[in-house]
Every structure is written in C-alpha cells, then in structure tokens.
C-alpha cells in the first residue's frame, strides 16, 4: 500500500518561499495568481494491506516526525 503525504505550512504562518514564487509568477505576467503556498510531498510505501491500521500508523508518523505541528498541517491519501 502506498501513502501520499502532504505537509503544508499553517495558514497563519508566513510562507516566504510561496511569496517569492507568487512574485515571480506576477513578473512573468501571470497576474491572475493569488496566494502561493509551498509544502512538501512525500510518498511512503507501507508493508500492509490493512487500511485502518495504515491510517493509524501514518497519523503517528506525521505527528511524530513528518510534520512539525507547531507550524505545519498534514494530510495523506492511501492508494491500493
């Protein structure tokens, strides 16, 4: 089973990288671009077919290591 994990900076925390990319897109003429936020995308392969167990374990992985919940949110999708 494969998990796709998305880690994003919390809405109320400044994302200077996102702001820089937004500025670059505006400079290139993409004036329709509003806010840009940059996050992390992780693919995690899991040696299990038990969906409920996988979700439970992934939650712990995210809380413990993959995201710093002081400044980041996370979500994940399971495939297979």
């Amino acid at each position, binding site marked *: 089973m494969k998990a796709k994990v998305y880690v994003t900076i919390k809405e*109320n*925390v*400044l994302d*200077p*990288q996102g702001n820089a990319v937004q500025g670059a897109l505006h400079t290139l003429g993409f004036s329709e671009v509003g806010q840009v936020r940059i996050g*992390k995308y992780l693919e995690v392969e899991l040696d299990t077919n038990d969906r409920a167990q996988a979700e439970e374990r992934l939650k712990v992985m995210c809380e413990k*290591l*993959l995201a710093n919940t*002081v400044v980041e949110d996370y979500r994940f999708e399971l495939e297979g």
Partner: protein
Amino acid sequence: MKFAVIVFPGSNCDIDCFKAVEDTVGQSVDYVFHTATDLSAYDAILVPGGFSYGDYLRCGAIAQFAPVMTEVRKAAEAGKFILGICNGFQILTEAGLLPGALIRNNSLKFRCHQVNLVVENTSTAFTNAYAQGETIEIPIAHGEGSYYVDDATLATLKANNQIVFRYAGENPNGSVDNIAGVSNEAGNVVGMMPHPERAIAEILGSSDGARMFTSVLNAWRERNGAASIS
C-alpha cells in the same frame, strides 16, 4: 564542572563550543557523540550549531530522535544546564524541550553578520552575568531562524519571563516579537539563534558571548557551593 558538547552528523560549531568553554571558564569539556547513552557525568550540555543529519525534512527534525537526546531530556528534567545554539536551538524546539519552531527567514536570505541583542532575562543559568536590558553584540549565521509561536504561547512566554534575548534594531529573520532566544519555564534550558561561542574575544569582533559561559559556571557554583569546585 564538566561540560559536554553533543556532536551530531553535520554539527559544525562543535569545535567552537569546545574552545569557547576552554577559553572562557577553563573547565573540563568533552565531545559526546549522538549515539551516547549516558550523560550523567556532565553538569552542562551544549547542543551546537550546524546541519544535523543534513537538515533533511526540517532543521533538527531527525536529530531529536538520536539516542543521546533521551539523555538530554533526562538532564533537562534533572535541572542540568542545557544550551542550544542555532541548529541546537532548532533541535531543542523539535524535541519539545523549548516552545515554538524555527522557520525560514522572511527575507529568504542566509543572514551571516553581527547583530545587537537586548538581554531580556538575567535569571537564567546562561545570562546571570549580564545586566537586565543590556545590549550585546553577537553574530548570527542562519537561513531558517525565524522564531514562531502562536499568540497564546507568546503570552505564556511573556508571563513566565521566558524570552531571554530580543534582536535590537533590525529583526534579521522575521521572528515573532523580535525573539532571538528563549528558555524553558525553569530557566535551565536556553535556546538561541545567535552564536555566543563565536563572540568570546575581541579578535573575533566581540567578546560579549563569553559571559554566557561564565554565567553557567556561576550558576553551577551557586548550586554546588564554591568549596566543591573540582
């Protein structure tokens, strides 16, 4: 008094910390590897700057689970003196020994220059040799040193007098409330982005960092009695 300087894969200010202890207070100091499982011999633990574990995932994220960190936690609970500098500060916040988190500088630049700091709290083990409100000059060198806490935590930090240093003048990284260093509630664990170990002699540009090391020796002597100095 015995100092430990923790060495992670990627630490690069460990030698500076070691030399700073030798040059400022002349006490016993050892390098202690990240795999160590016993810190009981040490009175003060320095977590140096650098890029522990390559800063993969996040600064300090992987280092928080190194075997030695279990011992650092125990030492913190036992009231031993712990100082995290730069990456060491990031590690201590990731480990939950200090509140908040360090995120990318709002300028997106790696900032590497002298800054002025206001000493906000002289009651910690590492700042008792400074005067309250004194301005000191210490260098910074970081790309991810913007200190973040939410409003509720900031109010708690203020109420408990846990803000140890603030940037004076320009805020070099966008830290909340100009915070450059904080302590835990008990004051025995301090973390800061600036590098006091790089400011221990005038030839380095400033000697204002030296008193962080003399402070901790003062604190240790006060706790153990001057007669038992070894």
